């Protein structure tokens, strides 16, 4: 009775376990090589760090059926155009700072982390910063001392993490770069800050209706 059925045999299942594991792992390794090449900085999905010299938008794409980052005209961060090396160093400094200050244990980045504070994937594009001109400085000021700058009515405040001016600028660079990563449409239905250039000299404010619907909107 014991040897009768293959599917109840110990050695059959031992071999199956080994083969299934090995094959799955080999496929994973293969996919990892492919994925890593597609997400290295400077690839199509994850742009080079110098992308912070440009405007970054998040626009609906008809073909993919979700929003994708769009790299626009030159708009250097803090008005200073950086070389690739300078940009990489700045973004890296920002990334280290996010780790050193433990941002991820309140916020999510690319949707991973903690849920006590807003997702930072598109923080650079958040309409809460008001206007694209004021944004950079507001972000730096906020990071340096957020404790009295509430964005909500439920009393949740970001603590003062002792972030210096240099660190804050680096963090903003990191956030700007992160917002340019192609995340397959996450977050969905996001409403980015208006980054369109001021309409070319409309005579008076009463002309407003005509100024709405600039190409950067979706």
């Amino acid at each position, binding site marked *: 009775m014991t040897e009768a059925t293959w599917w109840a045999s110990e050695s059959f299942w031992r071999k199956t376990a080994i083969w299934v*594991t090995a094959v799955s792992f080999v496929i994973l390794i293969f996919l990892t090589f492919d994925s890593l090449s597609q997400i290295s900085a400077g690839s199509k999905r994850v742009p080079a760090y110098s992308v912070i010299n440009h405007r970054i938008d998040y626009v609906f794409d008809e073909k993919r059926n979700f929003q994708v980052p769009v790299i626009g005209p030159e708009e250097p961060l803090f008005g200073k155009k950086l070389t690739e090396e300078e940009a990489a160093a700045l973004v890296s400094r920002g990334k280290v700072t996010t780790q050193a200050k433990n941002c991820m244990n309140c916020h999510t980045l690319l949707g991973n982390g903690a849920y006590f504070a807003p997702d930072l994937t598109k923080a650079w594009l958040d309409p809460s910063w008001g206007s694209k001109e004021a944004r950079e400085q507001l972000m730096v000021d906020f990071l340096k001392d957020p404790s009295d700058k509430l964005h909500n009515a439920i009393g949740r405040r970001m603590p003062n993490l002792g972030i210096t001016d240099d660190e804050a600028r680096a963090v903003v660079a990191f956030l700007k770069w992160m917002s340019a990563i192609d995340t397959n449409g996450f977050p969905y239905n996001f409403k980015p800050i208006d980054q369109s250039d001021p309409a070319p000299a409309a005579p008076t404010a009463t002309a407003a209706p005509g100024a709405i619907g600039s190409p950067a909107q979706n």
Partner: protein
Amino acid sequence: MAALGMLDSANLNGGQKLAVKYFTVAIALFGAQILFGLLAGLQYLYPDFLYGVLDFSVNRMVHINAMVVWLLYGFIGATYWLLEDEAQHPVVGLALGNLIFWVLTLAVAVVVVVYLLIQIGPGEHSTIWLINEGREYIEAPRWADIGIVVSVLVFFYNVAATFAKGRYTGIGGVLTLDLIALAGLYLAGVFYTPNISVDQYWWWWVIHLWVEATWEVLVGCLMAYALIKTLGVRRKIVETWLYIEVALMFGSGILGLGHHYFWIGTPEYWFTIGGFFSALEPIPLVAMVVHSVFDAGAHKMKSTNHPALAWIIAHAFGNFFGAGVWGFMHTLPQINLYTHGTQWSASHGHLAFFGAYVTIVIGFIYLALQKWRGNVWMSGGLVDGGWKWKWSLALLHIGMIGMTIGLLVAGYEQSQIERAIEGSTWTGYFAAQAHQWFQQGIFWRQIFGWVFAAGFVLLVWDLMTIGKRETRPIQAMQAEAA
């Protein structure tokens, strides 16, 4: 040999003496996990509570790090517990194993003190090396990473060498190979990169391939051993099941990793691969339930250790619901687009870690206490009717299920309002956080958190007293006909 009912290390073999040390620290850290979970939960309700002193980020970091460390301590303890018995050979390198226990425990203590007192550092690499790495679950600073790797290598040497000198059973073989994978994966989390997509790619190797592959197989080994011990199930049956579970678990879990690669910059083919394989992950968990319940039923629930068996059965169900059902609910990309990074994830994370891992470690601690007290009676009809273990089991489950449901309600609301409607802007985020359904959800999470904490207190009391005044020896086991 000491009198029945007395805690006496003469009752234990060498590996088991070391095991109970690991268990003791594990329970202490479990207590710390609960304490800091409660603090973090309170900050959701009272944002000014401990603001600037122990901020949410600190409490949460201690909460989840204590969890990872105590569960690993539980696994190491459980492995040392069964090692000599399984290998039929005394632990090789036990003195070194003991030394490493103290080194590791000291390191953990230092890490926690630094987390609490220094918390964060300047935005430089020295912070990552000395204070904290700032990556969820694996925040331990780099110096500690190195210590952990060395400790794990010693542990691995103890295990592999003992099996090699004694005998390799099916359980022993699977366990040894699994430990190599578990330790190796940790290395995927020990490096720095400015590229957040690459960072998270490898970060998930550690987190996912731990909890949904190597840890699952490890507890599969523990469960196999426990079923032999508490019920007397035949080894051949248990080990055949173990191989089936390994095949199903690794077959679905390794490529199921793709369910974390939908939105981090990785290519679109992960939608298909991750969605498909992770949807299969519940299958081995169903198999485990069938296995344990069938065995328990076939033995008419006549076990040598009722509390241990109860926690093992709780493990089978908890693993199925927490990981299998709660995981499946948000694993397809079409749903995950809205639930990703919301209280949904927290709901699943709590039920899964508790159901799959907390339960089985507690089960092993009950096995250990029985022998530690001289192999006392722990079947039906305990001295005090066993009310403490029954009530602690009940309170811990009621607390956990209550928290899970509270978070699920909050998560639903958040995914609808913040994600689907408002599009995840800061305003949208806070609109959802302020919504009364969300607030009610996290309020109830806190209430059930207190219930959970009460269950923990009772558990500790029971662990300290169970079998104390017992005079009957362990119930004889009717071995199955071979």
